[in-house]
């Protein structure tokens, strides 16, 4: 079981039309080198699931500028004017989801749940088209799982099995997306031998990781 692959091999795992999860929060904790590769490769008609659409010249926003998405599911697109332009001109479908709901939907997919009930979005446009369920006298929205064909995530360090640790605020959605895709590729700043990480401090267990690419320091 060797999970290490080259960046070229990793890029070949993303196909036109795929649903793609991308880790990161305003481009912090984003697998930047994989984004650059996907822009260059020109894969298209993707559905993006990401916290936000980064900036036009940083993070997943570069793929927005390259018009690689037919649909974007995110909690915030305000930092990338190109997303707004594509949305307003009807070029790209944009679904806005409350950030905590997005986190739970991705977690639900990865953890085999059929969804969660959340009070977030009740009484707002977010409830449109969703089932409302009353539990213990309080009303909640039923939010369904969100899964993907491929997740590209970032980690500060991986061991050769794929156990991951993170520094700073880079975890964000990376930990959740790891479990929620058919194929998960991690871009790690550094890869260390098996046994080098403290089993009490690993944040993402290797069981969720299919492939490891080394390099491309974050930031």
């Amino acid at each position, binding site marked *: 079981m060797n999970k290490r692959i080259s960046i070229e091999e990793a890029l070949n795992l993303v196909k036109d039309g795929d649903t793609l999860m991308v880790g990161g*929060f305003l*481009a912090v904790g984003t697998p930047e080198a994989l984004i650059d590769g996907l822009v260059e490769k020109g894969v298209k008609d993707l559905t993006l699931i990401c916290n936000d659409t980064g900036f036009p010249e940083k993070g997943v926003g570069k793929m927005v500028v390259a018009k690689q998405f037919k649909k974007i599911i995110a909690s915030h697109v305000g930092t990338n004017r190109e997303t707004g332009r594509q949305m307003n001109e009807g070029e790209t479908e944009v679904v*806005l989801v409350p950030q*905590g709901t997005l*986190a*739970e939907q991705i977690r639900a997919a990865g953890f085999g749940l059929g969804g969660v009930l959340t009070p*977030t979005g009740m009484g707002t446009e977010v409830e449109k088209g969703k089932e409302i369920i009353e539990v213990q006298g309080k009303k909640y929205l039923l939010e369904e799982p969100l899964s993907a064909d491929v997740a590209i995530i970032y980690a500060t360090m991986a061991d050769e099995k794929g156990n991951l640790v993170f520094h*700073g605020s880079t*975890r964000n959605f990376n930990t959740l997306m790891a479990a929620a895709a058919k194929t998960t590729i991690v871009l790690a700043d550094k890869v260390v031998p098996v046994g080098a990480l403290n089993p009490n401090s690993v944040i993402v267990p290797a069981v969720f990781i299919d492939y490891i690419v080394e390099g491309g320091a974050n930031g």
Partner: protein
Amino acid sequence: MDKQQMQEFIARRVAKELHDGDVVNLGIGLPTLVANFVPEGISVDFQSENGFIGLGPAPAEDQVDLCISNAGGQPVTICEGGVFFDSAISFGIIRGGHVSATVLGALQVDEKGNIANYMIPGKMVPGMGGAMDLLIGAKKVIVAMEHTVKGNHKLLKECNLPLTAPAAVDLIVTEMGVIEVTPEGFKLIEINPEYTVEDVQAATEATLIIADDLKDMQ
């Protein structure tokens, strides 16, 4: 007061609402300033919804760590005793009622405590980010904003922009005064001595209830 003085005046007043041991989430813009005015003698932890508690000030330029950023993506620091976590835990903390208070800006607030602050249809649709969860989950919701925008009312009888959350706001702090959202409507409990009650009412679409013990806002 110039704009900066006005914003600091608001932020200073909001900071008086904080208590020792509180965990507080500050929105971007004006609310961020609240961190500069935490009263002496109390310790407050700031939560950053992108994944930590213990948000500290911006670092010196040569101390920047690009992997430690706030919810606006800017480099910050983490205080001693802080802790990093992922987005599921971050919003578990928020949605689960473990955040003592959130301070947010708003486009509109109405007398039922409804708040609109995430989109103007056809014009500006940045998305709600973490705001809907914060409004639902934080124990206390404080809106910190200028009382009007370009002479137009922001404190309304009824919001007409898409709501970020219904019946969510507890307290509104502006440069004109401090307003509690009560079951009966907006209640002016403090007033900036530079203004009269009539001034504040004129700048507010909804009818104000004036507190019997109306105080000066400081």
